[in-house]
């Protein structure tokens, strides 16, 4: 049973880890915070695995946990939980050093910084939207209505475009 859960967990994590990591990135102040948050996310997902009821897809469910953890355990609180974070239990490191990365990375930093300026609810909707989740999935995860999600996304897009254009 545990082995079966572990296989599901590992497969789902392999498919979604980068997406979840990107979500964590907007709630973290620096790479260490991101690592800590992501680790907390992994712990919570693994511990909740037995209660997954397949009412939604596993990835949607993982996004929901990720957002809940990120919203509840913002960086300062996570740091208090020193037990998990004193050692390099989780490594997040660049996989390549080519030039295109540098250029795209700059744009990514700008985008992240603009997202970080949004309020918590908008941040959540934005990250899910940028991960190309449907309005219905976003509504399922955030508890908003689909209409509300659509309205929010329209407004957020405008805000983001303005913010990015200003910083270029």
């Amino acid at each position, binding site marked *: 049973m545990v082995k079966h859960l572990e296989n599901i967990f590992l497969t789902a994590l392999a498919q979604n880890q980068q997406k979840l990591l990107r979500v964590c990135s907007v709630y973290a102040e620096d790479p260490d915070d991101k690592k800590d948050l992501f680790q907390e996310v992994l712990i919570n997902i693994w511990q909740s695995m037995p209660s997954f009821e397949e009412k939604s897809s596993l990835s949607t469910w993982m996004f929901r946990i990720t957002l809940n953890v990120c919203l509840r355990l913002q960086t300062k609180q996570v740091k208090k939980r020193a037990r*998990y974070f004193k050692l390099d239990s989780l490594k997040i490191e660049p996989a390549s050093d080519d030039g295109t990365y540098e250029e795209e990375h700059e744009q990514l930093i700008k985008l992240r910084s603009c997202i970080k300026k949004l309020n918590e609810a908008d941040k959540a909707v934005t990250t899910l939207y940028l991960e190309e989740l449907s309005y219905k999935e976003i509504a399922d995860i955030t508890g908003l209505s689909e209409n509300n999600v659509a309205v929010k996304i329209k407004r957020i897009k405008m805000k983001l475009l303005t913010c990015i254009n200003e910083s270029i």
Partner: protein
Amino acid sequence: MIEEELIRIWQSSPNQEQVKFEKSRLMIDVQSSLDDFHRKIKYRDLMEQIAVAIIIPAFAYSAYAIPHVLTKVASVLIIGYAVFVAIRLRNAKKHKPGAYTETYLEYLHKTRNYLLVQKALLDSVLYWYILPGMTLTMLFTLGFGLTDRLKPIVKMAVMNIILAVATYFLNKSAVKKEILPRLAKVDELIRALEKS
């Protein structure tokens, strides 16, 4: 900048960041297993405390009410034995590591020590729990006298032995199934963390 561009930039990081989480997974696994172990120990200790809470007044009354000297002595000794068992379990519990007060590595070393204490407790259960308990129960029974009571006393002795053997093997099995695998996991994690 159009929205597809936003999505493209947002998703441009996947191949740039590599997540290595094996050790983290091991930590989750160990923690989950330890939480389960602590729950079991808590339940066992609670059952023993309830037993002690019942034994003390019951045998205090029997020491007062039953006229046979040997039974009175056995009752008092059983009360002492119950208190001794409660203290023994409490002392073992003192080694339980506190939550979130130290580094994870220190926590693991303390957890390892706690598991070893629990293992020693169960390994020696024959000498501090089974044999004294069995002897005192027999003493209590014999206190009523042997005349015309040989059959029930033999029955009682057989039941006592069966119970003792079952308790002994249950504890041996607990060491094998509950403690040794967890010790191995904690050791593995300590090695992994100390290597990094």
